[in-house]
């Protein structure tokens, strides 16, 4: 009985966490991503690959430093 109650409360907390997290990221999306995206569109900046007419091969990207996460 006690365990079921704890489980129930934990589920509610988890669900609340998800709702709060999603609300935060939705807000961030419109304010942060939105502002950058609008400015980028105005200056003609593209974020994904631009395809050329003859090929879609590109030189490998990224650093060779394996200790880095980037």
């Amino acid at each position, binding site marked *: 009985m006690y365990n079921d109650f704890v489980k129930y409360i934990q589920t509610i907390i988890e669900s609340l966490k998800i709702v709060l997290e999603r609300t935060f990221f939705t807000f*961030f999306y419109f304010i942060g991503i939105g502002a950058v995206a609008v400015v980028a569109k105005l200056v003609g900046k593209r974020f*994904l690959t631009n*395809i050329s007419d003859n*090929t879609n*091969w590109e030189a490998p*990207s990224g650093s060779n430093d394996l200790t880095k996460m980037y």
Partner: protein
Amino acid sequence: MTILGISCFYHDSAACLIKDGEIVAAAAEERFSRKKHDNGFPAGAIEFCIKKAGIAANEINIVAFYEKPIVKFERVFSQHLEHFPKGVKAFSESMGSWFTEKLRIKKLIREEIKYHGEIVFIPHHLTHAASSYFLSGFEEAAIVTIDGVGEWATTTIGFGKDGAVTIGKEIRFPHSIGLFYSTMTAFLGFKVNNDEYKVMGLAAYGDEERYKDEVDQLIKTYPDGSFSLNMDYFDYAWGVRMPSKRMSELFNFPQRIPEAKIHQEHKDLAASIQAKLEDLVLNVINVVQKKYKTDNLCIAGGVALNSVMNGKIIKKTKFKNIYIPPDPGDGGGAMGAALYINATRFNTNVNSFNPFLGPEYFWFEVELALKKKGLKYKLYNTNTKLIEETVKLLEKRKVIGWFQGRMEWGPRALGARSILADASDAKMKDIINAKVKKRESFRPFAPVILDSKVKEYFKDYSKGIEPLGDYMLVVLPFKKKGKQYAPATVHVNDTGRLQSIKRKDNPLYYDLLKAYEKKTGSPILINTSFNVRGEPIVCTPEDAVNCFLGTNIDALVIDNYIVIKNEV
């Protein structure tokens, strides 16, 4: 020197441990967590690897992670910047895990396994390339990696020589053969990152010409082997859903609802998609052959699991030898990361490789699992007697759960966690489906065959594709004799996804097949994975017993014990 390779957070998390140049252990997390294609942190797989090596976590010299998380995050962010404001749902749903897990991977590794040493990050496609080249045994080879997406790359070509791997060129997201195939898998009502092989199986029932023109509109190919997708038809760059609404307009029928009836249009579309995939990949491979001028080809990435495509490479390109590792997908990235560090930091290469790298269990653990469920079993003191009895059961057309030794690495059951049955009766397919697998009726079962007999029963088999047969990664046409002896494994287009078995790789499994051949004249059995639909392959004796009891498998051959269902 000890290296732990880890892959996780996309699909098929896994771990692999190399100690002093030898792969000691490797396994997918799904086998421990019992969650199919588990993408969580592979705590169970890591724990198993460390235990198997008989070391403590801090004795590991390097942990190698299978991608560069920040570069991947940059790509995800770029997708949302490019497609604002369409991606709000995907953004709000996915960002949480980036900040709680994916970008904290370093800390997570330290906390989860109590490790304080060096952690390195290998680019995703480099781990794919390494997972194939360093196991291939080739001194030099062209390397092609094709999957959904890594950080940015979706397809790469490169070269391996004298223990070094170099990526030459890449094609970047959103242009992806893997995501093209997955999108079409979704459109046909199947599960993405799980059911792609169903599209491959369904393709044999269709007419590839029917939707050829429409499928051609989805992807443009260039003479240099590269390609680009027409993104008007794909929503995956910003949405949760993969095909766009325009896809239905193009094909003139709606996206199939999962489990709904499969119509001829679905079969024809599957055939056209499969044909397009083969065209795209063979185009890349032919360009690579011209560029690197070698006879040897290494392939990796999830697309390399398309065994129908693999069966056509030798015939349609100039390569003479092909290698694909047992797990070419993301799980294999864990092994690739470890192999890459093993070769580049410690200048060693693995001398020998077999795919039986998972957990094994002592006889008393097996006995305990049987006793716990109150099962009546018979213990056979020698392998000869065990095999004799198993052959008798197979002759009686019994469906057998076969659980022996160390679990296989990779998604295929290779004779350690398999369901075996007689292949000489075409009805066996329906019997296995009714008793255990509950698969869609269009899906075939695979044959396992003695290595020395493959050429007698299959067309187009050559020494150059031997490793593909070893790991059940190639579909070949049956010869007349094959169709006659193993009708239960013959697909509608007279092909089969074979596993060829050599004694040195798995003596007990080989001896069983040899004994079966002696008794019946046929060197072929049905080999399908030991699981029920929707669950991972069994790992422990308890899993095997549960699967045995939860289905109508007739007999369980586990270690040296045999349990027969009606005697339970």
